[in-house]
């Protein structure tokens, strides 16, 4: 993510903990020196351990290590014997120093919070950014600390000179004591020499001579020492010169007395002693030594006082200095704590902001002055497919193949003039897909005003653009669709304002154009009269828009309309309904209106025509009914009146045959055969009449439609046919379960005719096979009666179903030629169709459909 670069500010800020280290060590030195009179060279380390701990806690690892180094050196210099030098007199001290160093380093490493002020994690980088913001006040704090350090230096030098002076005073006092000692030693050795000499004089014992000799030697040494000690005092030196002369004389006297004793005996020696005046000399010498002594004692008094004064002053300085140091430390520590506190709070804020930045789906990018990418959030990674690592260091527009909506120079000009720019850019993702982004950019400048970097936030608007485009297209389509419609379409919002309406709307309401239309519903009751079909006016709240807004829908609702101004009237047919939002709330109404005036007129005409037509149909039907009745009457006469003569012809022919043939032989065989012919023709005529009657009956008969089991009907017909033709070998293959919806009686007649035909035309076959089945034909079910009979030539199939049409001579197959016409009549009355397929000698198939199937 790597946001802001470490700024220069931070470098300065970073030295603060190191200053703290130096300060703490200095304080430790001061503290320890303060206790010096009590502790001397014992326990020199304690304050330094405290200092290292403090620095490690507040300043981190680096400053703690610095404090360790400074502490070791300070202890070494200030407190290890010999003090105030980097020499070491005792090996144990060296070991102690080493131990301290190791422990202090360990403390630095363990106790340091590990990157409170240093480190490489995100928080650290935030700290640096934070340093950018709050570095300046810190600088002031650091300046204060530097002032403190200066004061500390002054304090240390004051202390130093105080100590120095105190030491000098002490050295002078010691010197004085040495001089006094030397004087005492001189006096003592002089007296020892005299005593020893006297002893020898009295006893002539050589033991006294030895003591004498050594006393002379020590007197010489003491005198030399005294001279050396008082070399800086001319008064004392002068005294010593006089003393030397007197001592010489005195010693010579002592020596001559010893010589006299040895050679002349005790008496001579006593005389010599008495005469030589040695006692006076000795007194003089004593007086001189006393004078030296007195002088030195005077000096001692002065110097002791001076030393005491120096000591006191040093202690004051030390006390005050340590006190102010401790105060300073407390202040610095408190300030540091406060500062750390603030920083932690700021860090938390920044960490939150950083997480927020990473939460963003927008790409948030920083770049330097040359647009080289320095920061890249996870939104950018999501959007462009490049990871932070891949993107960092790349030039922005090269990585993303930026396409600009305006010239780059223009964009740069705006950025440099106004500091910010926003607009749309085309970018290319890592997978090559192009996306459209909405970009906001800010130019950052350095202190000199030069472009230092760019901050950029990009949002992917590809989908939005697409959706906008789609919306625009669909809007255009809607407009085009509305414009092309001949129906008036208008969409009103919840307040009845027309937000969409088309040209047809204007035409429908008799406005000259779309622009002249009134666009709120409320205006229309003043413009139009709206009436129901019966002429009663429609109250405005029952007009279409208010009804739709109440949630009602309507379909083909017709109203008569009239313009109040022109009086023009027309009829409209309306469809309307509410427009709802996703929550189901009604937000508008949509109404479609069509001018149906012409249609209404046409309908009226059609209605009139229909009425006329119905009248005509009624008349025609009456005519037909009359004709039908006549036909019926005719058929009745035919059935009744035509048959009666036939019956007469037949009856009388038979009577002729019965009465005039046989035994009486009034009529020969030929005559008899003629009579037979008369009778056969008569009967044929009878059949013809019967069939014709059936045909006419079928045409006239009323239809009673029911579900009919055709299979069962066919079976019963087949059984009847088998009975009629017991000599024939007839196989009927009737599919069971075939049903139809129709008139059972008529269908039986049709099936009877078809099956009878089949039986008839299979006459020449030894084995007749007749099927009744269904086949699928043009999506419908067709029934079929198929036989293996003699068939016929399809060339004549056209005449097959006409009455009296026969394809076979009567000598081949008897028949009236009415059967198939009857079947066709039945099928037609059921709304069906009949047709045949056949070939000579190959059988025939008759197909028929019935209008209604079950």
């Amino acid at each position, binding site marked *: 993510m790597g946001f802001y670069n470490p700024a220069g500010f931070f470098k300065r800020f970073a030295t603060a903990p190191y200053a703290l280290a130096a300060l703490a060590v200095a304080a430790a030195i001061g503290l320890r020196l303060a206790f010096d009179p009590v502790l001397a060279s014992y326990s020199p380390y304690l304050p330094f351990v405290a200092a290292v701990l403090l620095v490690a806690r507040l300043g981190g690892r680096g400053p703690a290590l610095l404090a360790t180094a400074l502490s070791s050196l300070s202890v070494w210099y200030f407190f290890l014997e010999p003090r105030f030098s980097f020499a070491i007199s005792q090996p144990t001290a060296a070991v102690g120093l080493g131990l301290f160093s190791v422990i202090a380093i360990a403390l630095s490493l363990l106790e340091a919070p590990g990157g409170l002020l240093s480190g490489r994690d995100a928080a650290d980088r935030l700290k640096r950014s934070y340093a950018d913001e709050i570095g300046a006040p810190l600088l002031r704090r650091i300046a204060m600390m530097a002032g403190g350090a200066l004061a500390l230096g002054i304090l240390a030098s004051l202390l130093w000179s105080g100590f120095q002076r105190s030491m000098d005073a002490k050295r002078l006092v010691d010197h004085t004591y040495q001089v006094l000692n030397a004087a005492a030693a001189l006096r003592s050795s002089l007296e020892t020499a005299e005593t020893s000499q006297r002893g020898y004089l009295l006893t002539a014992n050589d033991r006294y001579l030895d003591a004498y000799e050594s006393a002379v030697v020590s007197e010489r040494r003491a005198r030399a020492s005294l001279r050396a000690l008082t070399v800086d005092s001319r008064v004392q030196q002068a005294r010593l010169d006089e003393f030397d002369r007197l001592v010489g004389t005195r010693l010579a006297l002592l020596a001559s007395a010893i010589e006299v004793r040895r050679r002349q005996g005790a008496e001579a020696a006593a005389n010599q002693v008495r005469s030589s005046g040695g006692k006076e000399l000795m007194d003089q010498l004593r007086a001189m030594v006393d004078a030296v002594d007195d002088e030195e004692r005077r000096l001692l008094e002065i110097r002791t006082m001076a030393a005491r004064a120096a000591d006191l002053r040093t202690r004051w300085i030390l006390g005050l200095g340590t006190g102010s140091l401790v105060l300073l430390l407390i202040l610095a520590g408190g300030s540091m704590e406060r500062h750390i506190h603030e920083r932690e709070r700021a860090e938390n804020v920044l960490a939150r902001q950083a997480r927020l930045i990473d939460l963003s789906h927008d790409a948030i990018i920083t770049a330097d002055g040359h647009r080289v990418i320095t920061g890249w959030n996870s939104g950018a990674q999501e959007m462009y497919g490049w990871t932070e690592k891949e993107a960092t260091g790349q030039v922005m527009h090269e990585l993303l193949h930026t396409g600009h909506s305006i010239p780059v120079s223009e964009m740069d000009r705006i950025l440099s003039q106004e500091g910010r720019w926003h607009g749309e850019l085309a970018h290319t993702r890592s997978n090559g897909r192009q996306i459209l982004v909405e970009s906001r950019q800010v130019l950052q400048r350095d202190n000199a005003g030069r472009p230092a970097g760019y901050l950029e936030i990009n949002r992917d608007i590809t989908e939005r653009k697409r959706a906008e485009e789609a919306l625009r297209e669909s809007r255009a389509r809607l407009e085009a669709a509305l414009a092309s419609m001949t129906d008036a379409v208008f969409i009103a919002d919840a307040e009845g304002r027309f937000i969409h309406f088309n040209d047809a709307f204007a035409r429908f309401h008799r406005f000259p154009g779309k622009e002249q239309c009134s666009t709120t519903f409320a205006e229309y009751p003043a413009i139009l009269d709206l009436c129901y079909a019966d002429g009663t006016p429609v109250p405005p709240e029952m007009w279409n828009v208010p009804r739709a807004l109440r949630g009602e829908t309507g379909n083909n609702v017709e109203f008569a309309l009239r313009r109040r101004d022109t009086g023009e009237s027309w009829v409209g047919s309306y469809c309307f309904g509410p427009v709802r939002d996703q929550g189901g709330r009604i937000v508008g109404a949509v109404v479609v209106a069509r001018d149906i005036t012409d249609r209404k007129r046409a309908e009226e005409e059609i209605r009139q025509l229909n009425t006329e037509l119905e009248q005509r149909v009624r008349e025609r039907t009456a005519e037909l009914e009359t004709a039908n009745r006549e036909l019926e009457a005719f058929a*009745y006469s035919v059935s*009744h009146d035509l*048959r009666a003569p036939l*019956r*007469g012809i*037949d*009856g009388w022919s*038979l009577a002729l045959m019965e009465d005039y043939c046989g035994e009486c032989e009034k009529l020969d065989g030929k005559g008899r055969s003629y009579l037979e012919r008369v009778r056969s023709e*008569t009967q044929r005529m009878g059949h013809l009449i019967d069939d014709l009657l059936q045909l006419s009956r079928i045409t006239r008969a009323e239809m009673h439609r029911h579900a009919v089991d055709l299979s069962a009907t066919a079976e019963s017909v087949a059984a009847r046919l088998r009975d009629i033709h017991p000599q024939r070998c007839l196989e009927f293959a009737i599919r069971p379960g075939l049903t139809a919806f129709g008139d059972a009686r008529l269908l039986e007649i049709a099936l009877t005719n078809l099956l009878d035909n089949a039986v008839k035309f299979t006459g020449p076959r030894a084995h007749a096979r007749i099927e009744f089945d269904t086949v699928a034909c043009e999506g419908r079910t067709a029934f079929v009666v198929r036989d293996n009979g003699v068939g016929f030539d399809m060339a004549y199939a056209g005449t097959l179903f006409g009455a009296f049409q026969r394809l076979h001579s009567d000598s081949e197959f008897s028949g009236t030629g009415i059967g198939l016409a009857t079947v066709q009549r039945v099928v037609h009355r059921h709304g069906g169709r009949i047709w045949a397929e056949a070939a000579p000698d190959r059988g025939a198939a008759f197909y028929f459909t019935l209008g209604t199937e079950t």
Partner: protein
Amino acid sequence: MNNYKVILLIEDNSSDVDLTKRALEKGRIANEVVVARDGKEALDFLWGEGAFAGRDVSDLPAVTLLDLKLPKVPGLEVLRRVRADARTRRLPVVILTSSKEEEDLAAGYDLGANSYIRKPVDFKRFSEAIEQLGLYWLVWNEQPPKVKPPL
């Protein structure tokens, strides 16, 4: 006893009359055949009116053969009136006609015809039918009891 009963033939076609009579003869049915040439005449005979005034109307024919297509009063109307009149209510009536119309059949039975026979063109079968018919109605069929005249 039935031998004395008449057979009433209501038929306008003389050829049919003669052929019917011939068929009855052939069937050895010797009962007298009274022929009415139209419906009016038939009703006159049955009710003893008109030309038949004074006839004992309680003496009902053994069977009446009724054609439907008749001048003056049509066959079905004759039947309706016969059945409506208490005196002739029980008269056995056989419809003998050329018509095979379903309506005629239905109306005949609805009006109380005792039988319905269609005259075939083939006279042989016609004679057979007449023969059977005569035999049945005159020999096997029990005559209805006489209707008591109103006091």
